[in-house]
């Protein structure tokens, strides 16, 4: 038992270490020709490192008899010297070798990672050899993932060319965002389709990262077309681990560590803030006086608040709290506190994960079972997530012709969350604008609340967030989800090569969300426990219930004719139905916080209300027919074609069905006779080309038939009466959005397979775009979700993946891999619809433009020419929308049309939210038992609109500001850094209520996403502990980010406000840097 386990341990090590194209030279066999023919023959199967391979199948190719190797890799088979033995084992290339000696001959298996041969990859409903691929498919094996990351998707960051995986939030319960090859849609979702072990499963991906065997991403439309109407955003195929023939294995892994705020934002200290406050109020007072025709002189600075308000009103713009300003002398008072709110709100947060898995099997039955528990505290007080995972994958060969199996997985998560967005609901934003002059705690140790809101309530023009620490600790925000995936299949071989497979399954998701806002939180300008705070207290209880059913039947035909013609064909039918059943209720009238559940609401029945947007039933159905044929000749020429027809309940009666064809081909030049290694010895070269069409149906249900709204109330005759109103206009012709894509690719294997290059060029066009098209209000609506006829959005680009093994010695290995994606997005045609202007930040004004000839969602606004000076402020063009005349120290903007005034006509594209390129790279090295891996990703050349700066960079002093506000313009003698405009609480020419390039920042960054150092304990030590293997490792996630960006994270969330407003960073949970230690024990 011990010895057997050892073998497996070494096997695991071998797999783990093989990711950078491990291909050690085969050990030379000592051929002995002098031995007598004996019966039986004894031999041993080992891997390239000489470690035993147990469970390998050894077949005498003459007699067709087969046996398996034991724990030490030894086997015994009836054969004669000279017979050929075939040796095979999962994860290794098949070996055919003649018997040279009757005893002790070594059969050395080569791991098959990163060789073009034999590795199979998922292409949807089928697997094919990697060497047969004709589309653009990126494949990631488990060993390449950063498994110390708490989320599967985080483990993928920077690993795949052409797939942008973005870490947009550091909250323990938030995932990453994935975009495949740019944005093709303007209104419909652009998330990829996730398929887990063949089950299209939505994007709730709380899957245990340790269960992953491989991830294959179908990037080009030809590959994705087999998933038809859901594939325009790409398809991510996740394959989980299954049992293998051989001994039973038990792995236990524990990982623990802590996370911390990955970056602190520089803000003003108390003294600098007070200076800004006074400066801004006095400037505002001056502006308002001058506007009223009253002359300003410097002694006005000594006017007390009453005088100021009496003169110009606008208390919030001109008055200064007495504790900060000595009116008699016109000087600042010193603050009693200088609080660093970020230090107060963020903590070192512990993390732990336990994972136990067992797998094994025999010729008939195989199993993989795993369970894991993960507990991650958030770096922000009051946030955490606990996740429980369970999985069972079973395969059983019932008879020679019938295989049945089941995949069952279950995840339970329990999250404590915080809200994000505006400062009054985003503690991360509140901690930045909260005044440094205010304390965190009262003297008795309780949270000092309502201090900032108190200034607001007294009309001092200060924002009114609650103390963020009080907010996160007192507000309850809990989400518990249960996700189950239950899938069973039967595979029946009708005749050799022809299989009928039936796959049926159920996916369920149940969620309970509880929220309670207690009376102890201030409500805007009203105190904690005030009647208004009591009224504002509420509890939400929301349940989600989703059941998805899938039935799928496929016929597979595989046949080789005349040695060289290989054909594989697929014919399939699938039907899928998802039922959503949501309820949400809100309770008010809380008089105490003791319970904090809806049950504790006030007695008046009106304290219960249905949350309309959270209460509904929906059904969505999809019915599909699909087929694919792959043909190859002599492993040299490949041809593949597929077609899928989807019918969806989401679309109008006239447009329910859509057809999505594809065709692709490949040519392995290096197999041609004329090739003769002209790229070097054992080099390989393959060309690929494809075209395909895929669809996007990522829209809400029931958008093609107009309905009445839920009943509202009206008071008639002093009584509440029910009122029905007609709802928005829906388009009965609503249909798919379609993407058509060409892909050309090149696969190169150089230096005997030590350098592999995969390059893809693509051109894709999306048309019939789904769009909330503006429509005349005479329709009763202002927009209608419809397909824009003749509309086209183009994405073209290159993605390039390089894997190189620089050094490969028995004790030392060094590998490097990298990828880069260059994507260019362009709107070719808006189908007669005019330019689309959208607002993407917390502003009512517009920030983005989508127009023909440029990329989707370009930043739109004014170009800053500089800070006005005493010399030029009367001559440069003033702004039409501003009520205060231009002053020295204000920004002034380009007057594009030269009409002497800056107005809407002078707005133009001022920045590009799309990067020039994105990239990722990894270094991995191994020295004896030590291994080290470092991964990086980055983005170059994109602009980011920092949503925080609406508060953090407005020079108003209504909340704290970025540190460089201290470098602002004060006077001609003291112009600051020449960039930051003057302080003013009231509206100035340069205020933050319009978008100018002042508010755009360079979003380029390079981030080290992970570094991991591992040590595999020598076998001898493990054995002493009665174990097969021990691995210890240490990792750091997100150790550093190089970027000029002022906010927390330059990687903005494309999903946040839709495709039309990319590149906006707004109030999200900051990223985490985490340090972890792990131990993996194999029994």
């Amino acid at each position, binding site marked *: 038992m011990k010895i057997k386990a050892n073998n497996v341990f070494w096997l695991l090590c071998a797999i783990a270490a093989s990711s950078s194209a491990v291909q050690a030279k085969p050990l030379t066999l000592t051929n002995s020709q002098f031995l007598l023919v004996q019966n039986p023959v004894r031999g041993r199967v080992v891997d390239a490192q000489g470690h035993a391979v147990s469970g390998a199948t050894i077949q005498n190719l003459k007699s067709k008899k087969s046996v398996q190797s034991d724990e030490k890799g030894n086997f015994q088979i009836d054969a004669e010297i000279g017979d050929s033995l075939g040796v095979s084992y999962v994860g290794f290339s098949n070996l055919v070798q003649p018997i040279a000696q009757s005893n002790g001959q070594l059969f050395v298996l080569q791991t098959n990672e990163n060789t073009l041969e034999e590795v199979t990859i998922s292409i949807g409903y089928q697997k094919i050899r990697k060497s047969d691929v004709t589309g653009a498919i990126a494949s990631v094996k488990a060993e390449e993932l950063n498994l110390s990351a708490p989320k599967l998707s985080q483990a993928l960051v920077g690993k795949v060319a052409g797939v942008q995986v973005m870490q947009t939030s550091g909250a323990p319960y938030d995932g990453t965002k994935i975009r495949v090859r740019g944005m093709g849609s303007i209104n419909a979702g652009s998330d990829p389709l996730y398929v887990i072990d063949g089950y299209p499963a939505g994007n709730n991906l709380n899957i245990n990262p340790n269960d992953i065997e491989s991830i294959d991403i179908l990037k080009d439309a030809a590959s994705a077309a087999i998933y038809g109407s859901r594939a325009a955003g790409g398809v991510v195929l996740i394959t989980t681990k299954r049992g293998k023939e051989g001994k039973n294995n038990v792995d236990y892994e524990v990982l623990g560590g802590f996370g911390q705020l990955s970056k602190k934002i520089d803000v003003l200290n108390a003294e600098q803030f007070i200076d800004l406050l006074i400066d801004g109020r006095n400037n505002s007072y001056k502006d308002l006086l001058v506007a009223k025709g009253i002359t300003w002189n410097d002694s006005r600075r000594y006017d007390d608040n009453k005088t100021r*308000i009496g003169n110009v009103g606008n208390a919030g713009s001109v008055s200064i709290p007495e504790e900060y300003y000595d009116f008699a002398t016109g000087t600042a008072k010193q603050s009693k506190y200088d609080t660093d709110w970020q230090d107060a709100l963020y903590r070192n947060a512990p993390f732990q994960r336990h994972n136990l898995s067992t797998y094994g099997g025999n010729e008939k039955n195989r199993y993989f079972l795993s369970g894991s528990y993960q507990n991650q505290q958030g770096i922000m007080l009051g946030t955490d997530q606990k996740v429980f995972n369970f999985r069972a994958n079973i395969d059983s060969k019932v008879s020679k012709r019938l295989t049945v199996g089941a995949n069952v997985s279950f995840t339970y998560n329990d999250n404590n969350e915080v809200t994000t967005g505006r400062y009054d609901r985003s503690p991360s934003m509140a901690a930045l604008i909260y005044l440094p002059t205010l304390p965190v705690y009262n003297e008795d140790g309780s949270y000092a609340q309502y201090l900032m809101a108190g200034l607001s309530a007294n009309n001092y023009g200060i924002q009114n967030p609650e103390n963020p620490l009080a907010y996160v600790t007192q507000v309850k925000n809990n989400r518990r989800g249960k996700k189950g995936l239950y899938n069973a299949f039967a595979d029946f071989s009708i005749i050799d090569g022809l299989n009928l497979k039936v796959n049926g399954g159920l996916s369920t998701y149940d969620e309970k969300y509880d929220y309670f806002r207690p009376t102890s939180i201030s409500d805007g300008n009203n105190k904690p426990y*005030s009647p208004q705070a009591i009224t504002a207290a509420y509890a939400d209880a929301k349940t989600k219930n989703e059941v998805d059913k899938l039935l799928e039947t496929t016929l597979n035909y595989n046949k080789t004719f005349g040695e060289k013609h290989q054909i594989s064909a697929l014919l399939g039918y699938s039907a899928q139905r998802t039922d959503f059943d949501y309820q949400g209720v809100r309770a008010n009238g809380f008089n105490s916080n003791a319970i904090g559940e809806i049950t504790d609401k006030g007695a008046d029945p009106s304290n219960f209300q249905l949350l309309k947007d959270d209460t509904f039933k929906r059904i*969505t159905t999809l019915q599909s027919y699909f087929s694919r044929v792959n043909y190859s000749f002599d492993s040299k020429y490949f041809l593949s074609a597929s077609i899928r027809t989807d019918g969806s309940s989401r679309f109008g009666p006239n447009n329910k069905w859509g057809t999505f064809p594809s065709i692709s081909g490949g040519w392995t030049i290096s197999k041609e006779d004329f090739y003769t290694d002209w790229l070097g010895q054992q080099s390989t070269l393959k060309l690929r080309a494809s075209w395909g069409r895929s669809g996007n149906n990522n829209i809400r249900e029931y958008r093609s038939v107009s309905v009445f709204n839920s009943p509202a109330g009206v*008071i008639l005759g002093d009584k509440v009466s029910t009122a029905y109103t007609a709802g928005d206009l829906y388009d009965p012709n609503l249909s798919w959005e379609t993407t058509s894509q060409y892909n050309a690719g090149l696969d190169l294997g150089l230096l005997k397979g030590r350098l592999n290059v995969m390059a893809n060029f693509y051109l894709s066009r999306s048309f019939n775009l789904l769009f909330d098209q503006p429509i005349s209000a005479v329709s009763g*609506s202002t927009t209608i979700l419809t397909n824009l006829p003749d509309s086209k959005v183009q994405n073209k680009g290159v993605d390039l993946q390089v894997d190189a093994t620089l050094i490969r010695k028995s004790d030392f290995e060094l590998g490097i891999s990298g990828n880069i994606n260059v994507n260019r997005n362009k709107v070719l045609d808006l189908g007669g619809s005019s330019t689309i202007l959208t607002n993407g930040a917390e502003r009512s004004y517009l920030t983005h433009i989508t127009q023909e000839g440029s990329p989707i969602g370009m930043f739109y606004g004014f170009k800053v020419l500089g800070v006005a000076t005493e010399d030029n402020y009367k001559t440069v063009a003033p702004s039409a*929308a501003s009520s205060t005349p231009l002053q020295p120290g204000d920004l002034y903007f380009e007057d594009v049309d030269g009409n002497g005034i800056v107005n809407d006509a002078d707005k133009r594209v001022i920045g590009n939210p799309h990067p020039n390129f994105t990239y990722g790279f990894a270094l991995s090295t191994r020295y004896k038992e030590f291994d080290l891996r470092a991964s990086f990703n980055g983005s170059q050349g994109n602009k980011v609109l920092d949503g925080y700066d609406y508060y953090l960079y407005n020079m108003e002093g209504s909340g704290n500001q970025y540190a460089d506000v201290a470098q602002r313009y004060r006077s001609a003698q003291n112009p600051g850094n020449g960039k930051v405009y003057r302080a003013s609480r009231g*509206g100035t020419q340069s205020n933050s209520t319009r978008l100018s390039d002042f508010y755009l920042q360079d979003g380029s960054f390079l981030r080290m996403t992970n570094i991991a150092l591992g040590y595999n304990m020598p076998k001898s030590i493990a054995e002493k502990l009665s174990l097969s293997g021990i691995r210890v490792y240490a990792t750091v996630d997100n150790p550093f980010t190089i970027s000029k960006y002022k906010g927390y994270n330059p990687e903005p969330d494309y999903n946040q406000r839709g495709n039309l407003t990319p590149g906006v960073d707004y109030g999200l949970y900051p990223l985490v840097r985490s340090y972890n230690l792990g131990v993996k024990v194999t029994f």
Partner: protein
Amino acid sequence: MKKRYLLPLVLFALSSCSKDFLNQKDPNAIQIEDYFKSENDVLLAVNGLYQTLRSGSTIGEGSTLYNEERSDNTGRNDNQSNAGEPFQFNDFSLLPSNTYLKTHWAAMYAGISRCNVVLSHINDVTFSSEELKGRYVAEAKFVRALLYFHMVRKFGDIPLSTVQVTTKEQANELAFRQKEAVVYEQIIKDLTEALSSNLPNTQKEYVVGRTSKAAINAILGQVYLTLGATQTAGSAGNFAKAEQYLSAAYQMRTFGKLSEIPYTEVFDLTKKNICKELVFQIQYKQGDQNFSSSIARNYQAKGDTINSKYPSTGVGEVVKLDLIKDYEPQDLRKDFSVKFAKDPQVNDWYVSKFRDNSDAAGTNGWGGNDWILIRYADVMLLLAETKYHLGKEAEAIALLDQVRERAGLPSYATSILNNEYRTKYPTVKAAILHERRVELAFENQRWFDLIRNYNPQELVTYFKTKNQADYGNAKISNISTKDRYYPIPFDEYKLDPQRMYQNPGY
């Protein structure tokens, strides 16, 4: 052997498909085409039309921005809040891209389209009595006419639709500006037809909050008065019609002289269902967190509790000094309507006309104030204005005097002898306009009164004679003749710049 396994697999595979698999209807909502089945369905949809009027984006309480804050009565000094957009209305720096403007436009047309849906489907339903059906038709036409009347005065030429829109193509066809005269024709048609129903004369005989013949007459009269005052052609005929309908409304009153109803009683919550002056109002429910009025608390300034027990922290609804100075001495309405907030952080006038500081409304300020759309003082002054135009000055003055008497002011004949009064209001027309200003202050009449009484050039002249210091931070000098109309919202204009042409000057 083969069949043993194959058969169940095939059966399983084929057993799932039902015919309607792909035809899914929204289980939570009724399709518009399936909705109208019974009389009650129509009633609930007509209720929906009144519900539309409650919104601050249409003409409910809180729609002040689109009327009163455009005028010389109120307006904000704060040019910062909400990107300074609300400030633009008062500052005459309104941009077509102003989002508040678009919201108003869209909400008004949404209401109109709801009326169109009801009127397009009412024939689907068999009624027990034609009279009942006639009432519902009249109510829908009244609401539609009321909304169009607001829109045509604010925007001038506007798109006109009287049918249910079912496709985007149909919407595009209808989206073109029709001449004001055409819109007025439709308004008159709707109101005239509504009058032919058997609606009761007053809302109290029907249901408070629903329309009545008095309300229809009042609006129709105002439509003709507006036409007469602003269109040169056919003005005599229009004034005559205005007199006819306003008189008809006046005759439907259930009191004798206006002074029978004290001014404060008009706004007294306890009388809102019985007050004889009220012709048409939007009702709110005291103490109800969903259906209460928030006007009392929203208008109240920091430091005061006269409007509401709600502790205000802002400046409330700011009143311009220009209006304060327009109140005559001894006018009883002044102290009721406006108040000076002494709080050092406010130091300004605010609106105190809408009050509910009862315990029932409480510290949350869940008030019960109804939002009055038509009342008799308004009807009488409109009638006075009409009579003035028809040369019936004595009758006009008689009506004017009724209003003045209730306010504790001397008669017109006495007042005109007063030098200050005579200088300020040299004509009967000016006197009526002034009376309307103080009588109906903050009731969203002022802007319409100004654009009815002044042509664009006169409007500019009128504003420019004002003292900037009495006007707050909004700049009077910004006004020009373009400001007679609001701009067409940019998004709407952009859909079809030819047929949705912009108003001049924007």
